[in-house]
């Protein structure tokens, strides 16, 4: 992929994103001229950059969108849900096509039809407004007739008059207005005049364009539009039919002059005339087909594929049907164009390019810091060479050892810092994911007939790319739940003394060395009594156990797998669909999730996540003949206890630690090793967190404590539960780093370790 395209894709996505946000904001305050302006500019820029490449349907669609928004900006088109929805659909298409272009360098096959349908809808929006379109043939504006008057020989051919008033700053945008005029085929006259009275000599700025360019051409309107496609907002085009098609047409209503060239009109009118004359039955079929073909070709040449299709279809209805169809197209070309296609937006089956490589934008300061660190590293490495020379010269071992240790410490410090700053490249703000919620929330709320106000805070909080990018789905789950189950409908809310519109707040923030992302609603909250009942019904807890849990622990049960099913729990529970999926996702990212709720006041779900995929501190332990790593985060404490303090309790072993009974599990048994005879008198125990409980993990040896970059489990290892990742040991062995919580907690009953006898 070339740089230009890459840059284009990055920019396109940003523009789509910002325009989407603006459109949603616009829906909330339809009168805001600033926002309309911003949306218009976004579409204008999008169109401009798409125009650099060869994607005609895309460009045509963005053109149509720009026209629509331009009318909205001028106040001639109402900014309503129809326009906003249409613009959002356009952005959707744009985003999809950007993905398609990235993966396959081409638009999806269905893009042309889709673009046509969407563009048609813009046109029909525009044709609905009361103002007559600029293309209306009569009366000719003064500038056009003046220009026509300057012609010595006013030909028989229809002409197109163009007035092009370049923006004052167009030179800075790289425009060469006359350069565009040069490209217009069939020029008949050109006039260039100052757009406004010239400033004084001293104040004349050669780089401010102050020109009013008018021209006459016998080229079709479509050709003219092509030449000026990138500056359409600065151009007025007027058809100047030499032979008035109206007279040929007779009965057909041409009050609204069609937006295509008069040649096309003439062709269509001719077909109407031919069809109206009755012929004998034999020749009629052929003539009918020829007429339909001619009309369709003419329409296609004018870029009206939809109408062309319509003619072809009307052929089946005989001469009368075809004639009516053509007349209808002539009468209201823009409405007709959309009617045929609006209903059938094609399904897009092309791959969405989920895994497509994305460009990473990095703050230059971070790169500078990295470069200077690497400089230091090189210096430290040189010191090693010096040390080697000293060793060769026969310096004594003790001095050398000290010097080597020093160099090692130095390089160690540098590599840690290097890692940290390289990791910071991957940091991105949460706003990247937060901003994507405006639409789903709006749609979910709309679907349920609720009013929802979405608050977003702390979007500047940064986290690793891997975390931020994986955050959307679980968060979406939580947010949907909040809209669906958390918030009451407006009536219920008002009866409860709350404002009719529910409030959902997505907030990001720092939490020691991690981040917290919370989703709060001011809805009905979760009723612990209901959860208790349901947990018992689902067989997750016995009635006694459920009764023994405190309310917080009960609410936490919504994350238990199997707590909720597809069946509707919404009415009573407040929430609960698939919250276990959220917990799994959070844990996969090395985080956890918690919930807090007050009946009648609302619920807050918090995702606690690591900020970076940092160097993990790992404790290396031995179990039987093997070595495993356990992430230090998971370890609460390390204790050595005489074996006599461990007792067989129920199905397993337990000991008392600081007044609490803690289950004791042998690591060897957890990883499925054969039981070896116990020789030591003391047991080495790692107390780890497993869910809310503490569990003591008995190991045979403590071997080392290392800092390591954990590789996420993948391949064969990826399918094994309880593996947090792998890393390399200093001697080259691969260390499996275990995740005790998931080993112990994966299946609370079945996966309990086998009983051990002591």
């Amino acid at each position, binding site marked *: 992929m070339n740089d230009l395209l890459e840059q284009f894709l990055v920019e396109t996505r940003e523009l789509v994103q910002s325009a989407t946000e603006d459109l949603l904001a616009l829906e909330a305050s339809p009168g805001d001229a600033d926002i309309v302006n911003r949306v218009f500019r976004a579409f204008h820029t999008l169109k401009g950059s798409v125009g650099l490449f060869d994607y005609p349907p895309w460009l045509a669609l963005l053109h149509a969108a720009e026209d629509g928004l331009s009318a909205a900006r001028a106040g001639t088109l109402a900014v309503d849900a129809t326009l906003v929805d249409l613009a959002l659909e356009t952005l959707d298409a744009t985003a999809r096509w950007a993905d398609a272009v990235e993966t396959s360098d081409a638009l999806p096959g269905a893009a042309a039809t889709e673009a046509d349908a969407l563009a048609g809808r813009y046109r029909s929006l525009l044709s609905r407004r009361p103002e007559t379109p600029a293309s209306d043939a009569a009366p000719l504006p003064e500038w056009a007739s003046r220009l026509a008057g300057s012609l010595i020989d006013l030909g028989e051919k229809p002409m197109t008059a163009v007035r092009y008033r370049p923006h004052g700053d167009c030179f800075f945008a790289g425009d060469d207005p006359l350069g565009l005029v040069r490209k217009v085929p069939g020029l008949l006259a050109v006039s260039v005049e100052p757009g406004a009275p010239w400033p004084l000599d001293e104040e004349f700025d050669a780089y401010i364009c102050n*020109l009013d360019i008018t021209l006459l051409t016998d080229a079709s309107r479509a050709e003219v539009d092509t030449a000026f496609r990138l500056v359409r907002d600065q151009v007025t085009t007027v058809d100047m039919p030499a032979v008035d098609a109206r007279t040929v047409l007779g009965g057909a209503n041409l009050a609204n002059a069609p937006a295509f060239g008069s040649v096309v009109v003439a062709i269509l009118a001719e077909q109407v005339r031919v069809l109206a004359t009755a012929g004998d039955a034999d020749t009629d079929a052929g003539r009918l087909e020829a007429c339909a073909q001619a009309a369709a070709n003419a329409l296609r040449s004018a870029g009206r594929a939809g109408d062309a299709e319509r003619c072809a279809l009307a052929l089946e209805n005989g001469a009368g049907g075809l004639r009516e169809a053509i007349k209808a197209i002539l009468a209201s070309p823009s409405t007709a164009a959309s009617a045929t296609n609006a209903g059938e937006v094609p399904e897009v089956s092309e791959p969405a390019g989920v895994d497509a490589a994305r460009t990473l934008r990095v703050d230059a300061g971070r790169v500078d810091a990295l470069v200077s660190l690497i400089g230091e590293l090189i210096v430290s490495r040189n010191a090693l060479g010096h040390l080697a020379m000293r060793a060769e010269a026969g310096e004594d071992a003790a001095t050398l050892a000290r010097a080597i240790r020093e160099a090692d410490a130095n390089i160690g410090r540098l590599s840690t810092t290097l890692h940290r700053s390289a990791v910071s490249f991957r940091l991105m703000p949460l706003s990247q994911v937060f901003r994507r919620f405006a639409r789903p929330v709006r749609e979910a709320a709309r679907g349920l007939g609720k009013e929802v106000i979405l608050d977003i805070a702390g979007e500047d909080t940064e986290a690793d790319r891997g975390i931020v990018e994986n955050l959307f789905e679980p968060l979406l789950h939580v947010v949907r739940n909040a809209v669906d189950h958390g918030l009451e409908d407006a009536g219920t809310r008002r009866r409860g003394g709350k404002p009719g519109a529910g409030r959902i707040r997505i907030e990001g923030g720092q939490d020691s060395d991690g981040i917290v992302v919370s989703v709060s609603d001011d809805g009905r909250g979760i009723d612990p009594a209901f959860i208790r009942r349901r947990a018992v019904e689902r067989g997750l807890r016995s009635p006694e156990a459920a009764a023994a849990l405190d309310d917080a622990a009960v609410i936490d049960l919504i994350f238990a797998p199997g707590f909720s099913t597809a069946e509707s729990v919404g009415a009573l529970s407040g929430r609960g669909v698939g919250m276990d999926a959220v917990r799994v996702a959070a844990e996969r990212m090395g985080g956890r999730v918690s919930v807090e709720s007050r009946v009648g006041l609302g619920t807050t779900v918090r995702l606690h996540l690591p900020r970076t995929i940092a160097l993990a501190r790992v404790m290396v332990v031995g179990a039987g003949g093997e070595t495993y790593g356990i992430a230090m985060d998971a370890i609460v404490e390390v204790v050595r206890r005489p074996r006599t303090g461990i007792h067989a309790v129920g199905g397993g072993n337990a000991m008392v630690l600081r007044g609490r009974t803690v289950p004791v599990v042998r690591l060897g048994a957890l990883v499925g090793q054969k039981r070896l005879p116990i020789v030591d008198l003391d047991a080495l125990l790692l107390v780890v967190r497993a869910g809310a409980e503490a569990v003591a993990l008995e190991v045979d040896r403590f071997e080392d404590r290392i800092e390591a970059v954990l590789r996420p489990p993948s391949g064969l290892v990826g399918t094994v539960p309880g593996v947090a990742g792998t890393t390399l040991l200093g001697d080259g062995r691969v260390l499996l780093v275990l995740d005790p919580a998931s080993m112990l907690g994966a299946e609370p009953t079945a996966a309990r370790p086998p009983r051990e006898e002591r």
Partner: protein
Amino acid sequence: MAVVRRTDTGQGAPICLEGVCPVEDAETLASLILEDRTAPVDWTACTRMHTAVYQVLLRLRPSVLGTCGDPFVVRWLARLGPG
């Protein structure tokens, strides 16, 4: 490519436009004309003129020498030549 130049420093020496005159030439041309309002502009060697350059001529109306080398200007815009 080719910029606006002045062959010598004498009063009234022509300002020459040569080859393709891009947008950057507009300011140079404007300042040269304003420096010496008697200097004519020789545009015979100019093969293509940017709008901004043309605008300078349109605004400041120097006298021009010969026929412009840019056929588009000759065909459509030459009437604006000698002011």
